[in-house]
C-alpha cells in the first residue's frame, strides 16, 4: 500500500475537543496528516507543531520591489527620458513622487503576498480538493491520520482517536 491514500478520519465536535485531541494523538506517537476546521482555531499551529508562516517576509520583499519600481519609473520618466518644465519645478523632486510610490508599494505587497499564499496553499479554481469529511466546512473539526505512515493497525489508531475525544471515526480511501 502507498502512503497518502488510506486515511482514518476522526471527527471532533468543537475546537476545545480537537485541541485536546491533537495533544493526545501526538502523545500516543501518531503522525497527523492534517486537521480541517470550519474556522481558524487559535493554538492549533502550536499543538500540531507547525512553523510560523514566512508570508510576512514575502510581503515585505514584494513591497520593497514596489517602492523601487515606482521610484525608478518616476525618476527615469520625468528626470531623464522626457524632462518637462511644469510650473518651473525641479524635474526630479521626491515629495510629489511619494503618493504613487506609496500606492505601488501597497499594491505589490498585497498582490504578491496573496499570490504567494495561493500558490503555497495549492489553491486553484479548477481543482476539486480531497474531502475527508464535508462537515469540516460546516461545524466539525476533522483530523486525518495516514494509515500507511504510522506502523500501527487500523484498530489501534481508531482506538487512539476515540480516546482522544473523537465523536466518530471513519475510514477514507482516495484513488
Amino acid at each position, binding site marked *: 500500500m502507498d502512503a497518502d491514500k488510506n486515511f482514518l478520519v476522526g471527527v471532533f465536535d*468543537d*475546537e*476545545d475537543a480537537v485541541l485536546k485531541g491533537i495533544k493526545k494523538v501526538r502523545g500516543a506517537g501518531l503522525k497527523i496528516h*492534517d*486537521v*480541517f*476546521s*470550519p*474556522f*481558524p*482555531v*487559535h493554538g*492549533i*499551529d502550536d499543538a*500540531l507543531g*507547525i512553523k510560523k*508562516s514566512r*508570508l*510576512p517576509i514575502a*510581503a515585505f520583499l514584494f513591497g520593497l520591489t514596489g517602492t523601487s519600481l515606482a521610484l525608478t*519609473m*518616476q525618476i527615469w*520618466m*520625468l528626470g531623464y*527620458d*522626457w524632462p*518637462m518644465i*511644469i*510650473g518651473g*519645478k525641479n524635474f526630479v523632486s521626491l515629495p*510629489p513622487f511619494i*503618493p*504613487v510610490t*506609496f*500606492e*505601488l508599494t*501597497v*499594491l505589490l*505587497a*498585497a*498582490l504578491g*503576498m*496573496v499570490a504567494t*499564499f495561493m500558490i503555497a*496553499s*495549492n*489553491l*486553484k*479554481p*479548477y481543482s*476539486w*480538493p*480531497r*474531502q475527508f469529511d*464535508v*462537515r*469540516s*466546512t*460546516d*461545524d466539525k473539526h476533522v483530523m486525518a491520520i495516514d494509515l500507511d505512515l504510522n506502523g500501527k493497525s487500523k484498530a489501534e489508531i481508531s482506538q487512539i482517536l476515540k480516546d482522544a475525544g473523537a465523536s466518530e471515526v471513519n475510514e477514507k480511501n482516495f484513488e
Partner: protein
Amino acid sequence: MQVTSVVRDPLVTGGKTVKDVSHDISRQVEGKPTRSWWIAMAISVVLFAYGFYCVCTVLWNGIGVWGLNKTVGWAWDITNFVWWVGIGHAGTLISAILLLFRQKWRMSINRAAEAMTIFAVICAATFPLIHMGRLWLGFYWALPLPNAFGSLWANFNSPLLWDVFAISTYFTVSLVFWYIGLIPDFATIRDRAVVQGNNIRAQIYNALSFGWQGGAKTWMRYESVALILAGLSTPLVLSVHTIVSMDFATSVIPGWHTTIFPPYFVAGAIFSGFAMVLTLLLVTRVVFKLEDYITIYHIELMNIIIIVTGSVVGIAYITELFISWYSGVEYEGYAFYNRVQGPFAWSYWSMMTCNVISPQLFWIKKIRTSIAATFVLSIIVNIGMWFERFVIIVTSLHRDYIPSSWTGFHPTMFDIGEYVFTFGLFFTAFLLFAKFFPVINMAEVKSIVRSDSEKPHHKEGLGA
C-alpha cells in the same frame, strides 16, 4: 480559550450554534430569490437603464450636454465622484482598522460593508472616466504609457494622477481582501451543495473557493495574510481620501487651498461610509432575517462612530470658517462669506444641518438604538455629505477672481442621469451580491458564537 465575558454583551444573539450560522447564512444563497428581491432588482435595473442612456448620450455628444460652463468647470461629476469614494471608505475601515484594534463586532458587518466599498468605488470611477470625454484614450492620459506621438509620460506631479493610482490601488486591494474572506465561505456552500446533491452549484462554488479545504496550515497562513492585508489597508484607507482632497488642496482656488483638507476629508469619508453601511444593513438584516447577527448593539456602535466623525467634520467646518477670517486674506474671506450668504447659501445651510446638527441626536441613547431613527438619520447624513462636496466645489468656483465671469450652475438631465446611473449600478451590484454571496462572514462569526451565545450570559457578578 473560551472565555465568556461578564462585562460585554454577546455579539450574536438567539443562542446560535456553529451549524446554525452555516444554515442561516447559506440559506439565502441556496433558496430562490424572494419577491422583494425581484422588486428591488427591477427598480435598480430601470435606474441603471435610464442612467445608461444618459451616459451614452454624454459619450456621443461630449460633456457639453452637462450644465458646466466656463466658470464652473467642475460640478456634479466631481461632487458625485468624491461622494462615492467617501462612501467607499467604511468597508475597508471596518475590516482592516477594526481588525487591528481587535473589535470583534466587525465580524457580522464586514462582508457587506466591503462589498459596498467595492461597488461604491466602481461608481466613483465612472465620473472621472466619463469626464475625460473620449475615455478610450484615457489609458494614455492616466497611465504611465508612452503615447503614440513620442515618449511623453504622465505627469507625476499632478494630484489627479495620484488619484488614479490611489483609487485603483484601493479598489484592487479591497477586492482582494474581500475575496480572501469569501473563500472559506464559498467552500461551506460547496460542501452543503455536495450534501444536497446539487452538482452544478457544488462545481461553481468550488471554483469560487479555489478548492479550499481548511487545513490547519492553510488557516494559519490565511490568518497571516488577513493580518498583513489589514496592516497594508489601514494607511491605504487614510491615503485615498487624503489624495482626493489634494485634488483641491494643492490648487490656488480660495476655499480649496487649505491644509485642513486631508484629515477633514478622511473624517467626512468615514462619516458618510458608516451612514451608507447603516442604510444598507438595516434593510438587509430585515429582508434576510439576520437580526440575531446584526444586532442593535452593532447599530449602536456604528452610530457612535457617526457621532465621533460627525463632530470632527463639524469642527473642521468651523475651523475653516474661522481661518478664512483670521488669515486676513480677502479672497479666502469672501469665498466663505459667499458660501454662508451667497446664492448657494441654501446648500451650505443644508450641509450644516445634515452633517453637524443631525448626528448629534445620537448622543441620546433612545435615538441611537432606534432602528427607524437610525435609518432616517443615516440617509440625512449622506444627503448632507453630498451637499458638503457640492458646496466646496461649486461655491468656490462660481464667483472667481473676475466678477465679470461670475455665474451660476444648473444641472441638466444628463448631470442627474449619470448620478442615477451610479445608483442603478450600485444597487444592482449589491442585490446580486446579497443573493449569490454569503452576506455575513460565516467563518469569522463561527469563531465567536461559542464564546458568546452557547453559554448562558449573565451579569450577576458585576456588582461585587
